[in-house]
């Protein structure tokens, strides 16, 4: 009964996704330092005028930004959901596990050593960085007894993340590109590269397909690795595919807008609360909720210190930290079994 209700909610979220997505994009496009009347959108679609300032702002600044927020939110939420599933660790997420930091480090290196890199290469580098970050953190954690337990992994991830971003900051200040790099770090949503946005869509689809391919197995894995192996799951391949998906999604997200914390942590929890633990539904619903969440956070970030923009990471931290505290309060050092 309860289960059925949750299932219905999940399908509701998925079917209304295009509508909610369109709605938040609309909000994001209309509100900002310069308010747009609603009919501007109509005008842009049907008789676009390149000399009209409003039209240009809308099409070349607001729209890419809204879409980027939507995509990045979805990517990070999917990545977080998968990580939480396969590690059975309620604190797993791209920002806490050093994946973001690895990606940002490699991007810094690229900006320093090969300035003017194309969007393709940037995304590939960023993915390589995610893989390096995740590799170091999980590699080190699995060397330790008990290393994959929530607290240990969170500490290792945070500390290695500090280390990687320390290196990034060192390189940046050595080559005096601090200014450029701090844009990456603080995830300012302005200046999203339209070209990169176009590249991000297919990569996101690849990540989503990979995630969905393993989603059924992740549901089983979340019960426990021995259980999964006993039920005939090839845990190694599932982990491998999951990591590929995480690297693909996080790498693309960081290349698009920089490091954004807490989305990957918070959204899967909210989604799990709403629709239950079936990862076949959890993953796509997380994507929808994550996209909407980040897009709205972006709108908020334009207003809390108007006319200046606040880094979006600050907004997500204000929402994410109390949630994080709540999780710790509730669960402490325990592993969760769902």
């Amino acid at each position, binding site marked *: 009964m309860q289960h059925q209700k949750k299932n219905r909610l999940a399908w509701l979220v998925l079917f209304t996704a295009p509508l909610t997505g369109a709605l938040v994009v609309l909000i994001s496009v209309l509100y900002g330092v310069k308010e747009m009347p609603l009919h501007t959108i109509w005008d842009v679609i049907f008789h676009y005028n390149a000399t009209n300032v409003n039209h240009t702002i809308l099409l070349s600044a607001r729209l890419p930004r809204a879409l980027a927020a939507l995509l990045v939110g979805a990517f990070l939420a999917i990545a977080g959901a998968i990580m939480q599933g396969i590690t059975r660790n309620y*604190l797993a997420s791209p920002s806490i596990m050093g994946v973001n930091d690895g990606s940002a480090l490699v991007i810094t290196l690229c900006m320093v050593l090969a300035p003017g890199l194309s969007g393709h290469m940037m995304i590939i580098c960023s993915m390589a960085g995610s893989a390096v970050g995740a590799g170091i953190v999980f590699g*080190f954690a699995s*060397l*330790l*007894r*008990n*290393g994959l337990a*929530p*607290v*240990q992994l*969170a*500490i*290792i991830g*945070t*500390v*290695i993340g*500090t*280390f990687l971003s*320390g*290196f990034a*900051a*060192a390189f940046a*200040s*050595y080559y*005096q590109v*601090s*200014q450029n790099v*701090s844009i990456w770090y*603080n995830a300012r949503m302005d200046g999203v590269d339209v070209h990169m946005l176009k590249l991000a869509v297919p990569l996101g689809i690849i990540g989503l397909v990979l995630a969905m391919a393993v989603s059924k197995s992740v549901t089983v894995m979340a019960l426990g690795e021995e259980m999964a192996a006993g039920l005939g799951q090839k845990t190694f391949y599932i982990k491998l595919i999951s990591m590929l998906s995480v690297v693909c999604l996080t790498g693309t997200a960081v290349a698009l807008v920089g490091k954004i*914390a807490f989305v990957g942590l918070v959204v899967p929890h909210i989604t799990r609360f709403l629709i239950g633990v079936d990862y076949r539904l959890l993953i796509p619903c997380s994507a929808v909720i994550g996209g909407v969440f980040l897009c709205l956070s972006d709108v908020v970030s334009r207003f*809390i*210190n108007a006319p*200046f923009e*606040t*880094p979006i*990471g*600050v907004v997500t*931290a*204000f929402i994410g*930290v*109390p949630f*994080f*505290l709540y999780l*710790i*309060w509730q669960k*402490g*050092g325990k592993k969760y079994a769902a």
Partner: protein
Amino acid sequence: MQHKLGLKLVRSGLIILAFLLLAIYLHITSGSYTMTLREIFRTLFGLNDDRKLELVIFQFRLPRIVIGALVGAGLGIAGAVMQGVTRNGLADPGILGINAGAGTAIVVYIFFFQEMIQSESIGGWLAVLMMPIFGFIGGLLVALLIFVFSWRQDTLDMQRLILTGIALGTGFGALSLYISLKMNANDFEMAAVWTSGSIYNANWIYIYAMLPWIICLGALLYRKSYLLNYFQLHDNSVRSLGIRNEKEKAILLLASIGLVSACVSVSGGIAFVGLIAPHISRRLVGNDYRYSMPISALTGMVLLVFCDYIAKTVFAPAELAVGIAVSIIGVPYFLYLLARANRGGG
């Protein structure tokens, strides 16, 4: 036995002092204006009337070294106390978020009294002297929150303690970033100082502001250091020894938060010094806090002066924030500690 320990203490003390002198020598002689040891000594004792040397040494290099040493000592002591009271070898003011809380309070203070601080009058002095007090309030707030969140069944839950610290640190870091951007939206560097820690803009006023705190609280904590030895026992045994457990713990923690706030008000949040220094000192002189606390202070000094030397020179003429240098050196050591603790059945 006592005699042997005393010998060990003197010997390790001397070794660390030698390292400290080496670090100071490296720090004071190097930089964009190199000078010889002879010149430095002559200037320090006023035998040299070269105005340029005097300016470089007394206005730029010496304050920076003194602040580095004071901050290092403060963090070393505070780290030792926090590790002793929480009985957790991974406790550190940076990891527990105390740094971030104090930093936020100070940023708030600067936000309201910005003009006063920048003026050269008596008011400006007072404003700077007040900074550690505000930092103390912020640090205290974080400490209280940590306790509220990690208090379970009448004891501190260590895992919750660290996680809460990490969470609060991130949150307050975001808050300071927000406030400092509100002050000056274009100044990322200024905001970065509070999150990563830097002492490059050292001057004598800051030293006067933090010195009383370091001396008073350092002395208080040293006097109470014997208590930390008892706290390594089970709570009930401590109580049966006639020690007012909770009250003494509270005093120790408050004093160490005060120390951290004084440090943060000058240097911003520098993590890992408070973590590493106590470990090194325990390795040198053992677990007795009466000996390991002063050694920890000295180790902190060496660490910070040396890291600042690295931060100053390695990418010269560009400067690295000292906090970043410390974390690049500190993280591998932290991971090593974690691995060792795990192997040892932890």
